[in-house]
């Protein structure tokens, strides 16, 4: 549905987005991650046709957004970064305007308004003026605007920003539900959101894509990913170490502790053989009659991966 090819955006001498390429299919939810100022919003603005790219192109539903913007824009629902709304209108008036801009008039318009008001929990403020709304309501009003024409493509810039935990949860459920038959791109810097919602995530740093994969693949980049930690009671550390070293699936082994409690971390010899190492460790423990307290495969933490990939610049900036 969305294809981004070699997208570049310069602001004067500064290159904000540098050769970004990716694509999103129907049924996919792409999480867009990156530190502040990495180029997430700029990329989204190019996808939605607000900024023309310096070079490269964006194809939305078969239409090049530069050459054929209007049919392309019809397919997109867009929530800009700060969720701007016309503050001199009521919520209903604002949504009616958005509906009419999308070619919905009369009964179809009212129906569309009712649908998004239900989805975004706006019933209680429907006839209130936008400038009297709290941040959460204003945010959801703008989100409702992006859903009003039931678009096949959603581009959402920080859709859960400024919401309370319950509302965040609701929006995530909404995204998941929509994700089945729409193509969704959303940016966030909340990493748990990526796990909860995305089918794929892209990490962008200083204008470049530095990682692109499923959340599980990204986690696998973690240095601890795939390693197994175990805790054994009542066996000498030396014995544990020898036995672990002898295991064919084990690579590096770190053992700590005294006679009472021994904790060990075993790294796999070949990186991604999920579950294998844990299974052979549990067999080993059974054979040796170890009293096993804990046996856990480390999945890797996304935030660590995120930090290790994007840290260099921040570290430089801090010094």
């Amino acid at each position: 549905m969305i294809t981004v090819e070699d997208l570049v955006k310069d602001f004067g001498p500064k290159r904000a987005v540098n050769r970004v390429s990716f694509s999103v299919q129907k049924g996919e939810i792409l999480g867009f991650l990156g530190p502040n100022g990495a180029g997430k919003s700029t990329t989204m603005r190019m996808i939605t046709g607000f900024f023309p790219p310096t070079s490269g192109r964006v194809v939305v539903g078969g239409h090049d957004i530069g050459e054929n913007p209007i049919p392309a824009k019809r397919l997109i629902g867009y929530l800009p970064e700060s969720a701007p709304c016309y503050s001199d209108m009521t919520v209903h008036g604002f949504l009616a305007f958005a509906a009419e801009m999308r070619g919905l008039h009369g009964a179809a318009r009212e129906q569309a308004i009712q649908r998004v008001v239900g989805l975004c929990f706006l019933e209680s403020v429907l006839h209130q003026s936008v400038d009297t709304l709290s941040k959460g309501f204003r945010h959801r009003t703008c989100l409702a605007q992006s859903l009003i024409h039931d678009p096949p493509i959603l581009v959402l810039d920080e859709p859960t920003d400024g919401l309370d935990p319950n509302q965040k949860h609701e929006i995530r459920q909404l995204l998941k539900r929509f994700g089945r038959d729409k193509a969704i791109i959303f940016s966030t810097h909340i990493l748990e959101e990526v796990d909860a919602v995305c089918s794929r995530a892209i990490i962008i740093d200083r204008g470049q894509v530095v990682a692109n994969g499923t959340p599980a693949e990204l986690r696998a980049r973690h240095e601890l990913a795939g390693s197994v930690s175990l805790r054994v009671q009542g066996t000498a550390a030396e014995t544990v170490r020898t036995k672990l070293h002898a295991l064919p699936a084990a690579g590096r082994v770190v053992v700590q502790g005294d006679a009472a409690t021994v904790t060990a971390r075993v790294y796999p010899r070949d990186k991604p053989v999920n579950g294998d190492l844990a299974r052979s460790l549990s067999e080993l423990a059974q054979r040796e009659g170890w009293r096993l307290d804990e046996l856990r495969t480390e999945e890797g933490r996304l935030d660590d991966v995120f930090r290790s990939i994007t840290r260099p610049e921040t570290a430089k900036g801090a010094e």
Partner: protein
Amino acid sequence: MSESLRNIWTIAKRELVGYFNSPVAYVFIVIFLLLNGFFTFMLGNYFLRGEANLNAFLMWHPWLYLFLVPAAGMRLWAEERRVGTLELLLTMPISAWQAILGKFVACWIFIALALFLTFPVVLTTMYLGSPDVGTMLTGYLGSVLLAGAYLAVTVMTSAMTRNQVISFILSVVICFFLILAGWEPVTDLLVRWAPEWLVNIVSSFSVMPHFSDFQRGVVDFRDLLFFGSVIAFCLFGTSVVLRSLRAA
């Protein structure tokens, strides 16, 4: 075609609703009418003139609009830029042209409405004497076109900045030039040293001679062309400003 008209109307409607949802519209109309009355009857000496026409009323419009039209139009784009709704508007499936025209038309309708509310002046004139109705109509037509030209300037300056005050000042200065360029004291100043063709070019930019034709009851094609081209040029300028804004 009907779809683009529909889009223009949707945008214009939103702007108009915006005017009347805030106190801006009412304050504007009240001040517009008060000033009109003051200028016409006090400074214009309407009653002492002994003329059954609208000259004492219309002659002030270039000066009145100089401040009131920029005040009415300064927010059109500046506010969108400040709040960020510009991003919303320009990512909707419409062309920038439709948005520009929609906003322009909305504000123009609003000013025309305020102008329409000056009809008591017409009634008074008709009560006191027997004026030429055609001349009064062309006078109003000229006034609407004059407001349209100022408004187009304001739309353009409004797109240049996110600050309404700057937009206001810029458009007042430009509109002031449009008045002064053909004003006799200014042209006299030029005549002393500049070649005649330059004087003619500068003075042809002025709204004054074109506006006074309408006051005399003349609808000259050249006057229509003048106001039409000022409007078209400024709206085109607006689209250039908006494009450069996004490309920068």
